[in-house]
């Protein structure tokens, strides 16, 4: 029983990481029709810059950790905004070229990361509390999992509030449904594009910082390995649906943890789930039926 609790919580923790990456992917695809392969690079850069910063101001304190979260968000957001402005915007409405350009960017970015930081993993150090565990119904849960879940939940809350309460949030919600009609109301959707990329990038950056503590290290390959699962989560949840991404993240994370622990086939199961969803409801659990 306690094992199950542990698996459940760590599964949700893993799902939280996936969500931080998938939320951006989902919104970007829903609004802009762009499948952003460079999303992992936003995550990795956020993780690396934060790690560098934390080394300089003193690892292992709560203050440093919080600062790294802010830096991760900022770095991810800025990188994403620049990408949208310089690479995506010039290719307006040419969706395949936009996807290709993000592929090229991810290749180049990972190469630079390897050049600057090397290919070996660099170990991270968070507040000492992270290394301890808390007893939950008999299960010894590593504390950093809680932080991951809470931060991801806060990000989800923040994004939902933004979408529901601000004008740009309304524009994005409408645009995900019907972009041309938003334009036909006299609204310039391109600003919403940059905004969505920035938000997605910031969430990915935060995800990078949290991942570096979750896995214990940063490396140039960090973003890429998470990205594949984030894609899977996004598609299962329904491209363009934030709620779908959230639900799918938890389902996938928990499923992966449980099946990995007992039978070692976690990765497979997730992939089979993707195939099943795609063949029965290609638009995803909460996607619009086209």
């Amino acid at each position, binding site marked *: 029983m306690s094992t199950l609790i542990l698996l459940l919580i760590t599964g949700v923790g893993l799902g939280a990481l996936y969500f931080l990456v998938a939320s951006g992917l989902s919104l970007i695809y829903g609004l802009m029709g762009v499948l952003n392969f460079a999303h992992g690079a936003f995550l990795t850069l956020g993780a690396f810059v934060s790690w560098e910063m934390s080394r300089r101001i003193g690892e292992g304190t709560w203050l440093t950790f919080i600062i790294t979260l802010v830096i991760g968000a900022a770095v991810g957001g800025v990188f994403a905004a620049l990408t949208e402005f310089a690479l995506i915007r010039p290719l307006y409405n040419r969706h395949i070229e936009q996807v290709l350009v993000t592929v090229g960017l991810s290749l180049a970015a990972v190469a630079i990361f390897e050049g600057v930081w090397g290919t070996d993993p660099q170990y991270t150090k968070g507040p000492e509390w992270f290394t301890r565990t808390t007893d939950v119904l008999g299960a010894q849960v590593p504390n950093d999992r809680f932080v991951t879940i809470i931060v991801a939940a806060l990000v989800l809350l923040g994004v939902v509030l933004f979408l529901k309460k601000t004008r740009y949030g309304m524009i994005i919600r*409408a645009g995900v449904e*019907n972009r041309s009609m938003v*334009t036909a109301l006299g609204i310039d959707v391109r600003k919403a594009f940059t905004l969505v990329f920035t938000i997605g990038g910031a969430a990915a950056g935060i995800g990078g910082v949290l991942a570096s503590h979750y896995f214990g290290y940063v490396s140039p390959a960090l973003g890429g390995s998470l990205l594949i699962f984030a894609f899977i989560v996004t598609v299962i949840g329904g491209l363009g649906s934030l709620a779908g991404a959230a639900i799918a993240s938890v389902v996938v994370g928990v499923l992966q943890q449980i099946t990995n622990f007992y039978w070692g086939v976690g990765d497979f199961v997730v992939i089979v789930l993707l195939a099943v969803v795609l063949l029965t409801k290609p638009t995803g659990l909460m996607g619009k039926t086209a």
Partner: protein
Amino acid sequence: MSPDNIEPILRVQGLRAAIDGSQVVDGVDFDVPATGITALLGRNGVGKTSTIKSIIGLITRTGGTIELAGERIEKVPTHKIIQRGVGYVPEDREVFSALSVAENLKLAERDEHPNRQLVDELFPDLVKRAHQAAGSLSGGQQQMVSLARALLNNNKLLLVDEPTKGLAPKIVQEVAQALAIAAQSVPILLVEQNLAVVRQLAAGAIILSGGKVVHRTESAADFLNDEALTQRFLGVQSEGAVEQSAETTSGGML
């Protein structure tokens, strides 16, 4: 077509537009007078909706000039054209189903002081359902939202595409009334298949066929009373036998 002393609000010359390589608008010329309702008529698939869409740039134009209130707009992006004072009511309504009625309207507000009072008076039902998700509304109510969006702002021109499509007769009347009231303050270019409504509302009419203008009239009523003309251009016999088209699919999605 317009009275000599008032400029037409919209002047279209040689308009061409293509979708996926096929030329759907193939050299269209007409003027829309600065007052009243002008009907855009024609059989299925002749390019009425495409003409409207290409005027505001939702479809790629391949040629021609368009003047809105005397200013050329071919190179102006869609959202800027709308900002200059165009209200667009699309075929199939296209309300945002995930947003509430109030949000749908708020999104459409462009001016500092939108015509809230007018809209609330015309569509009391929408006031009641302000917080209801637009996707859960009936077809008629969605059409009200779509119309309200266009009436909220002070526009120079309204482009209205088949507002009565698929609606019950009572709602059709409500829509027609709303349009008639709106036309008191803003000119309307109205695409309509329901000829009774056209007869009721329209002053002038422009008839399309094969992506081109084939007939113009300053009196829609006279045109519709002329059996020979309506048969020739609309394929409709006035004895009540309606010509069925081979295509019965509705172009948009429900």
